């Protein structure tokens, strides 16, 4: 039995099963069980890769190395905890009359397929298939964003589809140009889009073609990452879709898109040897951080605010990978991990808070600590963690990014510090009255599953205090893969 087969086949099978039974009473449990199986398989895969090194599976179709196996595990883990969270959450939504049996089937089935498509995107060796899987992952979530059929959710889903569709079309053009360059360097056919082949002969690729290809790939996959100015779909899709989807969009899909960009950057770096891709990523990343921080301070909807915070953090990661070098790459990978953990934890807490208040407007959510202390503490600690307060992992990665920036690009540090400061003031100021203060909120009908919140925050705390040696080695290896 091949672990990769299990990793990829489980969510696809789950998608089929849940399309049939997704409205049953036990569908939530089945969803969680499929996700747990995926997680177990990906841990197994990780053990094999850590023991034997990079792995080529089924001819050359799939390729597992330290860089993507780390994201596979993260994706499977957050996928599993989100399925735990969604069980009571969606049950409450159903009781509120927002979810019909048909919509429950759609939600569960698409949730599994979405996870499956992300895992395919992460493990495939073929850059064309990577594109196909990214697009498929978007398609699975479009109907989930509009699942409540409100005017706002339809608008959000339409924007999500059209903007991401246009964006990803740019990425396809970039991929075609890449193929054109590869055809000349290593000959056409099936092998010319395989990443392992391209990486071996990246210095042979034509620099002119590659720089144009990278511009298109950066804009295309950058749309998915949420880089300013092509970020408009992101806050809407996060705010209007069901909260479990916001959590996985923020925590996972953005990471997968950034991963695709990184794979392309390695090739462009090799061909160009003038650091242009890195400088472009620094530019886009910095603009994203600053713009997102200022938009963030003007939000009234809690999910929108944290969506902008995701844009800000994705910008910071893009900036870090743009700087390059072992420390910045290490910091970028660490930031990917802790951001995925903390942001999904925040969305879990926010989801239940919004269900209690019956509204996502921040002025309607008050005094969470009184009604449901765990939700309140989850939101408070999560916000502190995402703002980069010391004991949590976000602090460690942001500190590394900032110190590297001071050395490599000192002009950028004031902008970063101002943006982080603005984001801090905005989020902290808004979260405080939501957590403390008087309230008239009522408890929820079903006990919320808040274990995932504290598991995620606990892991983020651990990564801030102590990165275990094997994990550190793993990050270092992965950082090396992207040219550290």
């Amino acid at each position, binding site marked *: 039995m091949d672990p990769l087969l299990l990793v990829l086949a489980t969510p696809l099978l789950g998608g089929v099963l849940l399309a049939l039974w997704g409205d049953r009473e036990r569908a939530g449990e089945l969803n969680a069980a499929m996700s747990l199986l995926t997680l177990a398989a990906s841990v197994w895969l990780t053990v094999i890769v850590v023991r034997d090194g990079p792995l080529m599976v089924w001819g050359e179709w799939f390729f597992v190395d330290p860089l993507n196996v780390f994201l596979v595990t993260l994706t499977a883990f957050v996928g599993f905890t989100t399925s735990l969270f969604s069980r009571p959450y969606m049950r409450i939504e159903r009781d509120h009359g927002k979810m019909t049996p048909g919509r429950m089937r759609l939600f569960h089935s698409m949730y599994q397929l979405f996870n499956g498509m992300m895992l395919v995107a992460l493990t495939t060796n*073929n850059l*064309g*298939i990577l*594109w*196909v899987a990214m*697009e*498929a992952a978007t*398609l699975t979530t*479009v*109907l989930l964003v*509009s699942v409540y*059929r*409100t*005017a*706002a959710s*339809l*608008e*959000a*889903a*339409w*924007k999500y*589809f*059209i903007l991401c*569709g*246009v964006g990803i*079309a740019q990425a*396809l*053009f970039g991929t*075609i*140009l890449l*193929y*054109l*360059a590869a*055809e*000349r360097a290593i000959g*056409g*056919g*099936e092998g*010319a*889009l395989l990443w392992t082949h391209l990486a071996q002969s990246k210095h042979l690729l*034509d620099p*002119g*073609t590659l720089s*144009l290809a990278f511009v298109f790939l950066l804009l295309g996959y950058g749309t998915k990452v949420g880089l300013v100015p092509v970020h408009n779909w992101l806050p*809407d899709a996060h*705010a*209007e879709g069901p909260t479990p989807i916001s959590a996985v969009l923020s925590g996972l899909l953005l990471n997968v898109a950034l991963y695709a960009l990184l794979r392309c950057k390695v090739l462009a770096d090799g061909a160009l040897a003038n650091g242009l891709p890195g400088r472009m990523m620094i530019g886009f990343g910095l603009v994203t951080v600053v713009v997102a921080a200022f*938009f963030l301070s*003007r939000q*009234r909807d809690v999910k929108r605010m944290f969506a902008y915070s995701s844009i800000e953090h994705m910008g910071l990661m893009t900036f870090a990978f743009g700087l390059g070098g072992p420390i910045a790459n290490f910091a970028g990978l660490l930031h990917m991990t802790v951001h995925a953990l903390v942001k999904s934890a925040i969305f879990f807490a926010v989801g239940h808070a919004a269900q209690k208040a019956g509204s996502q407007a921040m002025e309607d959510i008050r005094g969470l600590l009184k009604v449901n202390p765990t939700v309140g503490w989850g939101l408070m600690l999560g916000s502190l963690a995402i703002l980069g307060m010391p004991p949590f992992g976000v602090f460690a990665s942001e500190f590394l990014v900032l110190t590297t920036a001071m050395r490599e690009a000192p002009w950028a540090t004031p902008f970063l510090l101002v943006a982080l400061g603005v984001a801090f003031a905005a989020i902290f100021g808004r979260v405080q009255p939501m957590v403390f203060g008087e309230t008239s909120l009522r408890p929820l009908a079903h006990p919320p599953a808040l274990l995932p919140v504290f598991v995620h925050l606990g892991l983020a705390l651990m990564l801030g205090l102590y990165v275990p040696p094997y994990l550190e080695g793993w990050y270092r290896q992965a950082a090396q893969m992207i040219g550290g």
Partner: protein
Amino acid sequence: MNTLLSQSINLFAVVLLVLAFAMIAQRRILTLIHLFTLQGAALAAATLIVGYLTGQHHLYFSAVLTFVLKVILIPILLHRVIRRLNVRWDVETLFNIPTTMLIGIVLVIFAFNLAAPIAGLSTSIARGTLGIALACVLLSFLMMIVRAKAVPQVIGFLSMENGLFFAATAATSGMPMIVELGIAFDVLVGILILGVFMFQIREQFDSLDIRHLEKLKED
């Protein structure tokens, strides 16, 4: 014979470009779908000829795929959608068609300039048409920006996909088969989802005007 055929690739490329311009200016939804169907047919024919001239047999398959998808399946779906939504005879009011056309011409010049150095590197027989392919992509992009109704926006999106397919055929000898199949699958699923979507939008707003979808603004 062969020079005639390789000339005809250029001919079909020009047909694609002219159709892209025609779509920008076309106000009737029904005619727009006819134009899109024609564009698909031109794309399939161009792919077929490139396949014949280069002896790349997988391009035949790709041409058949394009024909089935873009000339048969998607137009049928679009016709059904507009019939059931009762927008078959809709005429959209477009402002400033001449200005839009001028912007389109600027885009074409820009695309040719961008593509010229790269097309020089390509060994494909149709490399001269890479500029046209990029121009088609940008023109469809323009069409999506200026249109306010859902169906024309979707057709713009699909026509952009046509431009991309043509770029893949023109610059390279077609993407690997598995990738092309994957892209075709994504397009088909995408159009099905959009069909579902248009009914949802219609149900919610009693209209397919995208201007209703501009409420989520930053305040």
